[in-house]
């Protein structure tokens, strides 16, 4: 295998990895402020792509359609939190998780009713020939995906460390009671994190649709991969989510390169399990001691 080929495998891994990372960021955001895993996160990814296609079909210019889709999906996320999760905020995490599973079933099925069972296409953001870098060729849309991932991470890191809302979110992640005592409106923070998570998922969905097309059923897989990436990196911090996503993507493409394309998903899962068993807090997570 020459270096250009190897680089191509790496590029492929980083492309998928960036998508996983965007979904993982959504998981991590919701987990940080609520302590639950939002199983509807993959459906936000699906909605992002589908709504953008609908926008383009309705005659909106692509950038507006993309933006409108992200905003609309974020509102759906907010609404979902407000209507279905807020009333049961004080129930245990399993109840909330099952509600998100119910939500994902409804969203997926409604999308099928609204957009039909077939896959839909979205035009690329900036059409043109692929960029060739050291023998590896990279689709222009992939540059968009990478760019958006970087923007999302930088923005989230800034949000967490520099803004009042970010501090409120971090306070919520430590303890809701403590955050409330500090005068933080925890309900609002949770709702905003759902909105942001939905927006991130949608952003991923919009960015990927021109490459892969989209359909009502792409959410489950996206959610699965994103969840795996978030766990692999370590739940609760944006950088870890991105690292988890990229590592997962690379594992898959390198499995194709060196082992077998049939078992690539299984191989990456085995590695994930191994990491989980040996280092349950994930690659970058901090181990949390249980207080006796």
């Amino acid at each position, binding site marked *: 295998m020459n270096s250009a080929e190897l680089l191509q*495998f790496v590029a*492929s891994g980083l492309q998928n990895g960036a998508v996983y990372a965007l979904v993982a960021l959504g998981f991590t955001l919701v987990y940080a402020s609520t302590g639950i895993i939002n199983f509807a996160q993959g459906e936000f990814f699906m909605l992002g792509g589908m709504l953008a296609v609908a926008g383009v079909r309705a005659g909106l210019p692509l950038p507006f359609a993309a933006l409108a889709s992200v905003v609309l999906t974020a509102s759906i996320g907010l609404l979902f939190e407000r209507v279905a999760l807020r009333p049961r905020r004080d129930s245990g995490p399993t109840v909330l998780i099952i509600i998100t599973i119910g939500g994902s079933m409804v969203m997926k099925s409604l999308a099928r009713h609204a957009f039909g069972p077939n896959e839909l296409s979205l035009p690329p953001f900036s059409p043109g020939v*692929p960029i060739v870098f050291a023998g590896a*060729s990279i689709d222009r849309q992939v540059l968009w995906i990478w760019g958006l991932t970087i923007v999302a991470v930088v923005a989230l890191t800034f949000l967490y460390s520099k803004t009042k809302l970010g501090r409120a979110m971090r306070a919520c992640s430590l303890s809701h009671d403590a955050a409330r005592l500090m005068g933080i409106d925890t309900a609002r923070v949770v709702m905003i994190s759902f909105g942001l998570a939905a927006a991130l998922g949608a952003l991923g969905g919009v960015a990927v649709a021109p490459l892969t097309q989209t359909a009502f059923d792409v959410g489950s897989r996206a959610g699965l991969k994103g969840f795996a990436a978030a766990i692999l990196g370590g739940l609760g911090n944006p950088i870890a989510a991105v690292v988890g996503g990229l590592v997962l993507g690379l594992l898959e493409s390198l499995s194709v390169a060196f082992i077998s394309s049939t078992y690539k998903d299984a191989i990456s899962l085995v590695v994930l399990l191994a990491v989980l068993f040996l280092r349950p807090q994930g690659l970058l997570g901090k181990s949390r001691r249980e207080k006796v």
Partner: protein
Amino acid sequence: MKMRGRLLTVVVVLALGSALVAGCAQGKRGASDGTSAKPYRIGAVLSLTGTYAGLGTPEQNAIKLEAARINAAGGINGRLIEVFYEDDGTDPAKAVAAAARLIEQEDVLAIIGATGTGQTMAIRSEIARAGVPQVSMAGGSVVTDDFDPLVFQTPWPNRIVVPFTLKALKARGLTKIALISDTSGYGTDGHDIIVKEAAAAGIEVVAEQTLNPGDTDMTAQLTKIKGAAPDAILMWNAGKEAAIVAKNMQQLGMKTPLVGSPGNGRKEFIEGAGAAAEGFRFAAGKVLVPAAYGTDSEPYKVANDFITRYTKAYGTPPDIFAGHAYDAFLVVVDALGRVEGDVTPGSLRDAIEKTSGLVGIGGTFSYSATDHNGLTMEELVLYRVADKTWVLDQ
């Protein structure tokens, strides 16, 4: 004690409920007996939701369209046709329940379906027990290779398409091929037959790669394939990943010809792959370009008529799956018209097996006691995508 009480209350309610329902169901069936000139009852097990929703929906559209047309014309033998649709949700177990329901509660004469190979195979025991003929719209070779006197099939199975495609490749001088197939039943079936038949067709398979349904990037597999320097890439799958393969090839600057399977004869592929779809070739029946039949031929008229009516009814031209469903329905209706004496599942099965020269969308069907697929390579042509549509590749 308390918990056991509750638990058993649940069980009691469940049991009482089912007993009640059972009684009602029986009453219902009793009422439908003894009516003269009642409609012929046909069952259809379709994947209207789940993974194959995109296949089952046009299938249902086609059957609905044809049933309405035949009933509007007075039905068959002066009796109307009533079709009972069941959704199997792309789940074999649900397909079994669906078939059992059609047989037990609806007393159907025949079952059309299922959409997928797995579902088709799953309902076999139900079919066998009731002796009801089944006409499947699934393309898996196993459906008719694993022979069952009750089971018929309308799509071109890989057993026919693969040798045709390999022959076409050979004829075009493309003898070193790389194979990329998906891990679904359709892709695996195609893969196995290609590997088995390649040598006989004078084709060498120099690379084999797989993709999983739902994969979003195939550059890794294609980079492996690129290293093997094939004359052509043969892709065997039916899902949206096909467009990604085409686009990834373009991205990698691969000029190798890409040849696909009938499963790629969908407009979504052309839309999804865009410019990368140009020059893509695949084998399929003549329905996509009916002119291939010859414009004054009977098949041309049948296909053109169906395409016109379908497009008018649903605003989009039929895809190959709608065609398979049309054929399956046509096979049953045609046999109904030929049954002499009492129409029973058994006599209907015999009539279906005697189908001969029946012009459908996928081709001209002639079943026999040993061939329940009824199509030959003659029905296939090679298509090429040019200017965002299918043209014949001569």
